[in-house]
């Protein structure tokens, strides 16, 4: 597990650093998308989660779910385009799961990717991702998770 300023970033995930989201390709070909621990720390306690509906197509870097924390509403932008195949009922019932376990139980949506290879090509992972998050935190004036 990598960490930057106290925020965890599992090294096996792919990240869109700008949008503060991760994606993981599962063995069945679907892609699981979630918020990073850094995004959760910036947002604070998340109290609402509205994913796009199952069956809906989402474009790369467009909203796949909307979350709310402390009266702030914002989109979670999917790193890969495709069709939403699952939403997280456990998170719908307890949106705080996103903060508690952003890389596990707190995932946002599962997507059947339109073109995994093309869309994932510009995502970062491992040390490259950690360095990019460090730069983003510096630019954001962020003290630490």
């Amino acid at each position, binding site marked *: 597990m990598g960490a930057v300023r106290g925020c965890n970033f599992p090294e096996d995930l792919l990240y869109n650093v*700008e*949008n503060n989201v991760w994606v993981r390709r599962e063995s069945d070909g679907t892609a699981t998308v979630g918020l990073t621990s850094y995004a959760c*720390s*910036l*947002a*604070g*306690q998340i*109290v*609402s*989660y*509205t994913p796009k509906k199952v069956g809906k197509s989402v474009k790369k870097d467009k909203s796949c779910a*909307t979350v*709310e*924390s*402390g*009266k*702030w*509403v*914002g*989109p979670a932008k999917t790193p890969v385009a495709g069709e939403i195949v699952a939403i997280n009922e456990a998170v*719908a*019932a*307890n*949106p*705080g799961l996103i903060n508690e376990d952003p890389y596990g139980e707190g995932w946002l949506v599962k997507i059947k990717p339109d073109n995994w290879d093309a869309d994932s090509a510009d995502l970062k992972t491992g040390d490259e991702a950690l360095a990019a998050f460090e730069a983003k935190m510096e*630019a*954001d*004036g*962020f003290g630490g998770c």
Partner: protein
Amino acid sequence: MSETHTRHWRLIDTGVLRAAQNFAYNRALLECHQENRSPNTLRFLRFKPSALIGFHQDVRQEIYLDYCLENGIDVQRRLTGGGALYFDEGVLGWELYLDKKSLGTAQMPLIAEKICTAVASGLSQLGVDARFRPRNDIEIHGKKISGTGGAFDGDSILYQGTVLVDFDIEKMLNVLHIPVEKWSDKAINSARERITTLKEEMEHAPQLEEVKEQIARSIGDAFQVDLNKEDDLLEAEKTLYEQALNEIDSPDWIYQHNRPRDDSSIKESITKTPGGLIRIGMSVDKNRSHLKQIWITGDFFIKPRRVVLDLEAALKDTPLSEMETTVRNFFNRNHVEMLQLKPEDFISAIKKAMSDDTVTHQKVTS
């Protein structure tokens, strides 16, 4: 006096509009800002009488729809978070479109604090003691005068709030589901203990232009920018506004997120403690397991009296699992005098209300 700064933000004032029009501007201006087409902007706005729910809320859980329809009150969904509110011409709306870089932080609670503190400072120039109260209010002596909320997209944020200049509290109670004690006819008094207006604080309603001027000046000073008034929007903004209005001015947008009404309920309890009676009225979102709003009343002794209102504010939009910690942290942080009353008494009273099974949506006044 304000200094002159090298940076400029735009100031616009769109006057009194329908809620759908105001929120279509929200979407158009936030989107254009995110695409680097719009400058940082302060907008003043007002509404025809409107019941406005937060982005994630459900109309029927938050407002008395029949009353609104019978009385010509617009019903709309905001793009920003937070709870339902009633707006009429006596409320001044303000909002900022900014990039996070202008704010020096990307942390949402700090952004809210910075903006609310600036607006509070502007209001204080009118001769009242307005202050930011966590997480998102501006208060005067503990009473709320401004509620705020935000939306973000990439590095762009929209943060907006109200200022109650001259406000009809009774009408608000008719419009919104508020956790007032159903057994009490003191709903209006309870509301007056929690909400105030500039008219009440200043003993006359100030000129709106004066309020706007003070807020604009204070924001300019806080962010070290000059605000330049502009009368017209950019072409790109106008085009996006028309598109947004089409979508927002429709039942599909307003009534989305519909859930069974009893998913959100008002829960109540009365608890006898050695320090007196504690009455709890609170609205809870069962679907998302969080406490939305709480009113605490009773005949217990606590000093300063505003502590109760500050505790209510601290508990707003709290996951039920965090309630106890929030209450304990609140009493650890604040110096409070109580007679035979302990923080645990509030926790027990809230827990008792949490186990209240009677679902009520009783109209308090008519």
